[in-house]
């Protein structure tokens, strides 16, 4: 045993709760220097909990709430784009000055798209995805009682919560929320005169993001330490499930890149409030010549995208890990090319730091520098391609069980193919001259990063829900949810490629001022209609999620998916500490499905005499 805290757990050391819980004991928090009373109050159990499983659920539920808000914002701006001539008096009733005459105003439109991006990229697909599954699965799958530091882990959630509260408050200030796009490029975001959203809303945005970054760092530190130091006996790095590899690399990316965003945000705060000129030079606005001289708005873009590009991999790597795990389990086959899957994850993680300036080909940067980023960007397509081919080969000759999680995983692969390939267009700077900041870009990143990451997240929720809550989600609703989401996402985002190839710029409130762009009214109406249906299907999922926590079908077997990994060796409703007895020892890799005529062999089963090991 390499973890001293393991010995602490004593099952049944406190009065039995209503649940079938075991080992619900916080003695191993002792390394925080606290000695809690045995019986946990509601507050320590559900609010300020240090149990990684509870924290994971907190991240998930918070992420769901933010996803509903972010999705609702997209429905609102799709109303404007789809039905520009129609007045919705109800909007005026609800939104007041932001929607005069039943139309949302251009300022409010910009706030909606900005917050839609910020919320979904950071609060949902970073905190909601990584926060949920890294927290939930790392200790359970590596065989640890909890995170390396449960206390920091709790702080990580509460910093995220505070970031959310502050972002929420910014919706209600009189000048509105930030409206400079989720990338908040200065000078637009730096100058209070440049737009309404650059007034107090932007201060809130920066403060909220600073707290969010702290949360991400605290979480990431814990994930890395736990994976590296707290694996159970026998769990070598070469026996880790691909989920854990993905979470580990995600955390490393976050740890190395988020501080840069914090730096960028701090300098922006200085420019906004202290009269510095990091990002400002030669500006005449609102009848004033600003005294700021010598800064560079492009500097911000470099700092932002130094985080921003790893960020898209922070979003997609956990989804890749989850999908690899779910595909193998439900194909009843090993993941194809385990070693190649790890190496390609490593390659993607490394290269993700070397491609950021492909967002900036047309900022006037030196063309030579641009060419280096073209090379790096197209190189990253190779490990991505390997992953796709390996996922598809994992299905080949399998015995596929189509649980909702499996459906979403296949959906993920399809989306990742579609969205990944358009990246090859955008990453080539010469083509980017045409496609830069058009709807082609919108289509690309929504499919490859937004929808695909959501598919991975849903796969994870459906697959591990029985472990989280001891009950199942309703399958029928799961299938409806999948098909509406999957088909709907294609119907929404695929046609946006066509709009991009017609030259339509992003972030336009209306296209009617341009002869060249004003030809997609019926398509926009169609997209908006589908978007509303897809949004409704997500609400169906949310109802299913909360209903099933209390009323779902109970899980009655320890290992319902017949999976090999350690989390299914815990009790149906594991207590704090995860295993009532000793932590099991690991003897084999996590993908022994269909080996030697057996459906699956758990990681805990010792290797047999003469059994072949084939990997690493």
């Amino acid at each position, binding site marked *: 045993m390499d973890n001293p805290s393991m010995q602490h757990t004593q099952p049944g050391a406190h009065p039995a709760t209503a649940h079938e819980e075991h080992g619900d004991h916080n003695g191993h928090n002792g390394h925080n220097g606290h000695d809690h009373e045995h019986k946990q109050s509601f507050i320590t159990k559900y609010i300020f909990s240090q149990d990684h499983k509870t924290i994971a659920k907190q991240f998930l539920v918070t992420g769901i709430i933010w996803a509903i808000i972010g999705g609702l914002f997209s429905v609102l701006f799709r109303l404007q784009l789809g039905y520009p001539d129609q007045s919705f008096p109800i909007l005026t009733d609800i939104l007041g000055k932001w929607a005069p005459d039943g139309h949302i105003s251009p300022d409010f439109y910009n706030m909606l798209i900005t917050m839609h991006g910020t919320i979904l990229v950071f609060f949902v697909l970073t905190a909601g995805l990584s926060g949920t599954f890294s927290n939930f699965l790392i200790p359970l799958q590596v065989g640890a009682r909890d995170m390396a530091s449960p206390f920091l882990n709790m702080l990580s959630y509460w910093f995220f919560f505070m970031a959310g509260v502050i972002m929420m408050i910014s919706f209600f200030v009189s000048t509105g929320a930030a409206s400079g796009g989720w990338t908040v490029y200065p000078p637009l975001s730096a100058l209070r005169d440049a737009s309404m959203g650059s007034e107090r809303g932007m201060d809130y945005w920066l403060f909220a993001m600073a707290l969010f970054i702290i949360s991400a760092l605290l979480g990431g530190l814990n994930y890395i330490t736990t994976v590296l130091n707290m694996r159970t006996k026998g769990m070598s790095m070469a026996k880790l499930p691909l989920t854990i590899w993905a979470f580990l690399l995600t955390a490393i990316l976050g740890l190395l890149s988020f501080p840069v965003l914090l730096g960028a945000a701090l300098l922006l705060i200085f420019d906004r409030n202290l009269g510095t000129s990091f990002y400002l030079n030669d500006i005449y606005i609102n009848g004033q010549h600003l005294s700021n001289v010598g800064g560079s708005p492009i500097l911000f873009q470099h700092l932002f995208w130094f985080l921003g590009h790893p960020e898209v991999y922070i979003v997609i790597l956990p989804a890749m890990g989850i999908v690899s795990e779910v595909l193998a389990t439900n194909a009843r086959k090993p993941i194809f090319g385990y070693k190649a899957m790890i190496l390609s994850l490593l390659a993607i993680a490394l290269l993700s730091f070397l491609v950021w300036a492909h967002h900036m080909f047309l900022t006037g940067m030196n063309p030579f520098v641009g060419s280096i980023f073209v090379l790096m960007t197209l190189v990253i*397509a190779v490990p991505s391609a390997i992953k796709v081919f390996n996922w598809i080969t994992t299905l080949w000759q399998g015995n*596929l069980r189509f649980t909702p999680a499996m459906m979403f995983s296949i959906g993920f692969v399809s989306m990742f193919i579609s969205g990944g390939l358009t990246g090859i267009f955008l990453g080539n700077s010469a083509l980017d001259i045409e496609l830069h*900041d058009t709807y082609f870009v919108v289509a690309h990143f929504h499919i490859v990063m937004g929808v695909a990451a959501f598919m991975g997240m849903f796969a994870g929720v459906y697959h591990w829900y029985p472990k989280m809550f001891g009950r199942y989600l309703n399958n029928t609703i799961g299938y409806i949810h999948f098909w509406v989401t999957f088909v709907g996402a294609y119907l929404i985002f695929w046609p946006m490629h066509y709009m991009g190839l017609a030259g339509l710029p992003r972030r336009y409130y209306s296209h009617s001022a341009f002869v060249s762009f004003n030809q997609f009214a019926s398509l926009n109406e169609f997209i908006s209609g589908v978007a509303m249906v897809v949004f409704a299907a997500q609400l169906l999922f949310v109802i299913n999620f909360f209903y099933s926590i209390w009323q779902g079908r109970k899980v009655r077997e320890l290992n319902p998916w017949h999976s090999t990994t350690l989390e299914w060796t815990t009790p149906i409703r594991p207590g704090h500490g995860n295993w009532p007895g000793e932590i099991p020892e690991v003897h084999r890799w996590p993908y022994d499905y269909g080996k030697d005529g057996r459906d699956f062999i758990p990681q805990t089963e010792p290797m047999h005499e003469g059994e072949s090991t084939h990997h690493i």
Partner: protein
Amino acid sequence: MSATLVTVAIVLVFIVIFQLAKISEYTSILKGKEGVDEENDKYASWMFLIFLIIGFILLIGSLVVYIPKMLPVAASVHGKWIDSMFNVTLFFTGIVFVACQIALFYFAWKYSHKKGRKALYYPENNKLEIWWTVIPAIVMTGLVIVGVYRWFEIMSPAPANAQVIEITGKQFNWIVRYPGADGKLGAHDFKLIDETNQVGMDFTDPNSKDDLMPTDMHLLVNKPVMLKIQARDVIHDVGLPQFRIHMDAVPGIPTTFWFTPDITTDEMKKITGNKDFQYELACDQLCGKGHFSMKMNVYVDSPEEYAKWLASQKSFYESTIKGTPEEQNAIQAAQKLHGEEAQEKKPTEKKEI
């Protein structure tokens, strides 16, 4: 009222779906299933196959409908290179797209769960994996070589005979400035900008006196154009989709883009069959609430049309400044600025054109 009706309808649909879902769950419990529902597997696998087939039919159908609405043939020399590069990239990615999507959904259909069938234990095949690492790497190398070659060509210095045009982005419109007969743009400084003198022209510089500031942009067909791009307040982006051009306009950091338009507006009207066709300059970088309305009309003229247009233009100084109180203000401001600069004994911040 209608909102209430819609809400009620949505709630009713939800309730119906929910009840049906519960019933199907109870029946599966009665049949004694947990976790995995085998009947669903068959049904789900067929759904994937149907999705694949209908998806490809819709894809082809939508291309037939929407290709005519996409950008017409590129109206510039480099734009045609970009178009052919786009087609090459589309060819290779198209093959991968079709092959991978078919394999994915075909396997999902073909290998759906059947009782008694065993999945193949097939953890790795190094040969196969090397092949599908090397082939994409080769294709990517090809695309990089073509792309970077064209990129350097497009980004190369403008030819000496290029017509220089200065474009300034501001919230929320574009300002263009042409050098006059002397072929030189006059000096300017952001400190000289005011309500009238929108780009801060320095009227102590004789080169400024004949500069034109028309309301539309006119280009001469087949003559290289060099855009000097700048912004006054926030970042904008010069978007000229028919010419395959995007280039950011960054405050304090001028950028450039040169190209050769080769299809006149009249010819493009014939090509597109649209008598209202219009080249337009759009802003492609979010710049505030009027972002979506930041437009300037662009005309590609035949030599005769261009000469006629040029003859009708009067210099900005002659038409707007000369003899007005603004003239004194502007000149005094410029002199004051030069005085300050001399005093500070630092290199002039005047932009040399």
